[in-house]
C-alpha cells in the first residue's frame, strides 16, 4: 500500500535542533521554530550559516545531534527514512535527474517505488503542471535545458502528491529569466495545491518576493523571523537589514538609471 501523503500543508516544528559534526563544527546551534500548515517559508543566510543542514533534518538527509523535528506533531525519526521521504517533495540546486532514465521515468520514480507501474496519464498531468510540453516525456535528461531540468525536478517532487515541499537553492543554477519564471511557477503550485513549503536561498530578493515568512540564519542560529514587509521596514535586526540592503540598493540604482539621473 502506498504511504498516504501528508494531508495538504502539514505543520513543521523544529525543537531545539542541533547538528554537530565530528571535529567540532556546529552547523545548527539549537534552532526552535514552528512553521504553520500551508506556509511558504524562506530560510535565508550566507554560505555556511546552517540553513541547508536545518532543511535536511526535515527529510532526514541529515540526522540532528540533538533536538527533534516534528511534522504535524509527529517526530520524523519515528518513520523509516525512505518512507518519510516519499511523503515529502525535495528539490535541490543540482536537480539530480537520473541520467539513465527518460523524463517520464524520472518523474514517475516515486510512484514506481510505491509499486505503481502505469503512470503515463499522471506523468502527462505533471508535465502540464510544470508547463513542459508532453512530448518531452520520452527524452533523456541530457537533452534538456537547465530550466527544463529543474521543472522536471519539480514534477518529480510533486508526483507522489506530497503536502510538504523542501527546496534547497532550487533556482541557484538558472539564468535570471528562467529563475524568475520558475519562482513564480513554484509559488503558483504552492497556492493551488495548498502545500507547506520551506525554501533555502542565499538570495534575499527571491525570499522576499516568494515567501510569506523569512527566517534569517547566521552561524547556526535564527537571527531574524519576520514577514517580508516587516523586514523591508528595517525591523528584522542588523543581519537581516544587511541582507535586505543589497536588493533595496540595487532597486534604487536601477530606478535612478531609469530616470536618467
Amino acid at each position, binding site marked *: 500500500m502506498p504511504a498516504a501523503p501528508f494531508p495538504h500543508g502539514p505543520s513543521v516544528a523544529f525543537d531545539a535542533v542541533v547538528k554537530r559534526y565530528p571535529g567540532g563544527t556546529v552547523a545548527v546551534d539549537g534552532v526552535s521554530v514552528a512553521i504553520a500548515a500551508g506556509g511558504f517559508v524562506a530560510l535565508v543566510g550566507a554560505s555556511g550559516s546552517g540553513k541547508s543542514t536545518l532543511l535536511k533534518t526535515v*527529510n532526514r538527509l541529515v540526522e540532528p545531534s540533538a533536538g527533534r523535528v516534528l511534522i504535524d506533531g509527529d517526530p520524523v525519526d519515528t518513520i523509516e527514512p525512505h518512507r518519510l*521521504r516519499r511523503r515529502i517533495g*525535495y528539490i*535541490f540546486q*543540482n536537480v*539530480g535527474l*537520473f*541520467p539513465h532514465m527518460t523524463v517520464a521515468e524520472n518523474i514517475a520514480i516515486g510512484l514506481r*517505488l510505491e509499486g505503481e507501474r502505469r503512470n503515463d496519464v499522471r506523468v502527462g498531468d505533471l508535465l502540464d503542471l510544470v508547463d513542459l510540453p508532453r512530448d518531452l516525456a520520452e527524452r533523456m535528461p541530457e537533452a534538456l535545458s537547465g530550466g527544463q531540468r529543474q521543472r522536471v525536478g519539480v514534477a518529480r517532487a510533486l508526483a507522489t502528491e506530497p503536502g510538504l515541499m523542501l527546496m534547497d537553492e532550487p533556482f541557484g543554477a538558472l539564468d535570471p529569466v528562467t529563475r524568475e519564471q520558475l519562482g513564480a511557477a513554484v509559488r503558483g503550485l504552492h497556492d493551488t495545491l495548498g502545500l507547506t513549503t520551506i525554501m533555502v536561498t542565499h538570495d534575499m530578493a527571491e525570499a522576499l518576493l516568494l515567501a510569506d515568512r523569512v527566517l534569517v540564519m547566521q552561524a547556526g542560529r535564527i537571527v531574524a523571523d519576520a514577514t517580508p514587509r516587516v523586514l523591508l521596514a528595517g525591523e528584522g535586526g542588523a543581519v537581516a537589514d544587511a541582507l535586505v540592503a543589497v536588493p533595496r540598493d540595487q532597486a534604487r540604482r536601477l530606478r535612478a538609471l531609469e530616470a536618467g539621473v
Partner: protein
Amino acid sequence: MTRAFLDALARVPDLLAAHVLLAAAALVAGLAISLPLAILSARHAGVARVTLGFASLVQTIPSLALLALFYPLLLWLSALVGGGIPALGFLPALLALSLYALLPILRNAVTGLAGIDPAIIEAADGVGMTAAQKLRLVEAPLVVPIVMAGIRTAAVWTIGAATLSTTVGQPSLGDLIFAGLQTQNWALVLAGCAAAALLALVADALLGLIERGIAMRRRGRIWAGIGLLGAGIALALAPIWAGGGQARTITVGAKNFSEQYVLARVIGHRLEAAGYRVRYREGLGSAVIYQALASGDIDVYVDYSGTLWTNAMHRTDVPPRPRIVQLVGEWTRQTDGVRLLGALGFENAYAFAMRSDDAKRRDIATLGDLARQAPRLTLGSDLEFLERPEWAAVRDAYGLRFAATQRYTPSFMYRALASGRADVISAFSSDGRIAAQHLTVVSDPKGAIPGYDAILLLAPKRADDAKIVTALQPLVGAIPVAAMREANYMVDRDSDKRTPDAAARWLERTLGL
C-alpha cells in the same frame, strides 16, 4: 608444415572447449566475488583499501607462480579436512584465474561507484529509495558500462592466463603451446596461440556488444551478446554431457619433454585398443605428477626410478639399478597404494654432456676432470635440475663449482650447448640428440647419480584393474634404449619432425607391440 598445422588444429576443439569452460567459470567466480566486495568497498573506504590492495597484490604475482602456489595450498587444505580436495586440475586453475580476474572488475566497479555524481545519489535518497533500490535502480545501471569494461579486461586476461593451467594438469589450449615449445613443433604452438587469441577476441567482441547495448539502451544487442556467449559455453559443455561414460575414461599423464609425450601415446594407444577412452594430461612438472597419480587425478604415467628415489623418498645412497626399482615399487605401494607395474627396459639418467671436440680439447672424461675446469665453464640445465637433490649430490661428491649456470627448456638447452652459450648441459641419457649432436657424456666414476629406469606407475584405484594391467603389461621390459632414443629424436630433430603420436606409432611398429 601445412599437414602438421592441420594435425595440430585437429586437437584444438577439445582443448578449446576445456579452455572456454575454465575461463568462463573463473570469470563468473571472479564476478561473484568482486561485485559484492566492490559494493562494500564503495560504502567503506577502509574496506576499499584492503580489497583493492589485496587484488593488486595478487596481480603482482606472476600467473604461473599463482597457479603453482595453489598446488601446495590445496594439498595442505586437503590434508587438513582429511582428503578429498583435488590439488591438481580444474580446481587450482579455477581459483588462481578467479583471483586474477578480481582486480579489473573490482577496480572499475569501485571507481564507477565512487564517480557517480553526488547529486544523483542525493536525489535517489530524496525520492525515498532504500539502499537496495538505490543500488538496483540507480547505482548499478550507472556503473554497468564501467564494470563491463573491467569484465572485458578480465576476460582477455583470464583467457590468456588459462593457457598456463596446463602446468597444474588442467587441459587448455596451453597443452598445444607447451607441447609444441617442448618438441619444437611450431605448428602446435601456432595453433594453440591462434586459438587462444581468437577466443579472447571473440569473447571481448561479444562482451563489447553487451556493453554498447547497455549504453544505447538496446535490449536486442544485450540479449544477442548474452545469447552468443551462452551458446559458446553450452557448446563447450556438450562433450561433457555427451561423454557419459566417464568411468571408462583413462587419464594418461606426461611430464614436459618429448620422451614423455611419446610414451604417453604408446600407453594411450594400448588402452584405446583395449576399449578405453583416453585423455592426456601433458606438461606436468616432476614435482606434481606423482602426487597427481597418487590422488587419482591421472591414472597412469611413466616416471624414472631415480627421480622418486631422491625426490620423493629422499634417499642419498645409490644401490644397483634393479634394487632401486624394487625399493621404489615397495615404497609407492606402501605409502600411496601406487602400483609399479614394471620397468620399461631403458634408463633415462641425468648425464653431463659436452661437445665432443671441446671435451677432447679440455681433456675431460670424468666428472672429476670436469670439476677441475668447472670454474671456467657455464652449465646449462633444464628448468628443474638445479633444484633437485641429484644436483646437490653430484655437486658435493665432485666439488662442482661452475662459473655460471643457465636454465633452459630441454630443447633450448641442447641448442645452447651447440651454439657455445653453455659448455656442459644436464642432458638425458635416452635423448637422441646426444648421438645426433656428437656429444660426449662425462662419466660418473663415484656413482653419485642413481639409476633412472623408466617405470610404469598405476594410480591406486587402477592398481588392481586386471584389464588395464593386461593391456599395459606387454610394455614392461619391451623398450630398449636405442629404440627410445630414435623415437625421441624423431620428435626433437629440426627437420622432418614427427608428432609424438607418429613417433609412438613408429616405436610400436618397430618393437612389434
